[in-house]
């Protein structure tokens, strides 16, 4: 039983973490909120004035916003779809008995450790480049016109790039979950005459749902703020074709120096992320016994 004394000690032990995170939340958040109501340009210091909701009106009515919002959702959704489905299939494959499991596992997980700026540059120059890229060579071998990936289909290219990073992660988590599946249950269902599909949907999928929830939660946190891949490859372009919310706010505030509009965009990004978060936290709250 915890005594009064140990409770007081526990509170003291927790406080530094709680205070720091509170500060981390409140100070910048408060400032962002405050800036979002100011006309505030870094190139014109001392000219700040209160403008009410002007920045929000400007940011939300900018056609770049709706494009960025749709791009953000397409990017997150696309990568989740590819990695969760691909990861499940790959985990099922790697769970089988075959030669060289250890090495295959190591090769498969490797992309997850490649820093985003490296993967972006490698894909941009050595694979997706329409002249020297490997994809162009392959297209040439088959007598096809090479695609200029990053200017013709920029968002899809970035989605594929980011998926390459996260597919190993999803695979690893789902594979680990799969390996804890009770083999006898599978065998029993086989004897009862369950085919591979009903086995998959009635035993394996429910078993994986917990791991899947965690994969979706973690990936969403990171995918909502994909940045380096866009900065390094397309700079959000051509036009706004590959601009997501993170990149748009960055461009407003640090490229156009319009802190007010950038801050309004930041607040919008926070609101949207929290709408997503509420659903996810419910899911994980149910799935985790804290």
């Amino acid at each position: 039983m915890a005594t009064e004394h140990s409770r007081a000690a526990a509170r003291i032990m927790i406080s530094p973490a709680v205070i720091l995170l509170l500060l981390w939340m409140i100070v910048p958040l408060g400032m962002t909120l405050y800036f979002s109501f100011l006309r505030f340009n870094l190139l014109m210091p001392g000219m700040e004035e209160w403008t009410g909701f002007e920045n929000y009106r400007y940011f939300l009515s900018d056609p770049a916003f709706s494009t960025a919002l749709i791009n953000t959702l397409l990017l997150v959704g696309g990568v989740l779809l590819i990695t969760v489905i691909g990861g499940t299939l790959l985990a099922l494959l790697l769970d089988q008995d075959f030669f060289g499991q250890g090495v295959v596992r190591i090769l498969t997980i490797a992309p997850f450790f490649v820093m985003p700026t490296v993967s972006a540059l490698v894909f941009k120059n050595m694979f997706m480049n329409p002249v020297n890229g490997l994809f162009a060579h392959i297209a040439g071998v088959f007598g096809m016109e090479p695609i200029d990936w990053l200017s013709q289909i920029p968002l899809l290219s970035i989605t594929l790039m980011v998926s390459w990073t996260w597919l190993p992660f999803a695979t690893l988590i789902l594979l680990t979950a799969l390996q804890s599946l009770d083999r006898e249950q599978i065998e029993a269902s086989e004897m009862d005459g369950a085919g591979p599909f009903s086995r998959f949907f009635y035993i394996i999928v429910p078993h994986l749902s917990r791991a899947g929830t965690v994969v979706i939660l973690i990936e969403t946190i990171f995918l909502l703020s994909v940045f380096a891949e866009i900065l390094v490859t397309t700079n959000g372009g051509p036009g706004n074709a590959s601009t997501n919310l993170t990149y748009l706010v960055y461009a407003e505030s640090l490229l156009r120096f319009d802190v007010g509009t950038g801050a309004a965009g930041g607040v919008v990004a926070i609101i949207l992320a929290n709408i997503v978060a509420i659903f996810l936290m419910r899911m994980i709250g149910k799935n985790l016994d804290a």
Partner: protein
Amino acid sequence: MARKVKKSRKLFVTALAWIIALTLFFPVLWTVLTSFKTEAEAVASPPSFLFFDWTLENYAAVQERSDYGRHFMNSVVISVGSTMLGLIIAVPAAWAMAFVPGKRTKDVLMWMLSTKMLPPVGVLIPIYLIFRDIGLLDTRIGLVIVLMLINLPIIVWMLYTYFKEIPGEILEAARMDGASLRNEIIYVLTPMAVPGIASTLLLNIILAWNEAFWTLNLTAAKAAPLTAFIASYSSPEGLFYAKLSAASTMAIAPIMVMGWFSQKQLVRGLTFGAVK
């Protein structure tokens, strides 16, 4: 019950698994191979695979172009520093929550995780301005602080998960046997906590090493770690495939090796023990 797997089926699965694994790994392999080619060979058509004159000149050139060693040290200082600082703050917190849980412990944990939901871009401007005004822009210490804060919720959660698995009965047993608090901590608790702390350390170094949003936006020349250094290769005058590959290889090699060693902990750590 050992299931008999038909040999042909096993061969088929082996082939398929290897093909997919090699495809996924290929960009890494290709980058490493290209780093040993001359620039002419790196863009040769058709591309040469293994049969070319291997050279180390790109590695020397990367160091010459810009001080690779300094960027490497920045990465080390920032990732290790932010992780250590995070651990110092998180270990007591996670410890208290795991062993002296109160009514609101679960809420506190959920709230901490929810701060991860704050998109970095939503707080970029204030942090940028604060750092500019107090002179932390483009400094290692500034990045150590930011990366510590953004990873703190994950560190607390991971440690909490590990500590939670230390059975409380062992502590009570030790106490019954007359162990003093000091001995209890040194001989009973620490040996059981160290593996969890080590995994947390490893994983957070990996996360901090690869973090790019803050490093790209808060550093310029002095404190830029490898993530920002590599990004500087995106400018047109830096477009040399072989040198880019050499720099990339040097940037990812240490962390990839570390990652391979910590696969198992990665799963437990990043899923907060929900997947075993």
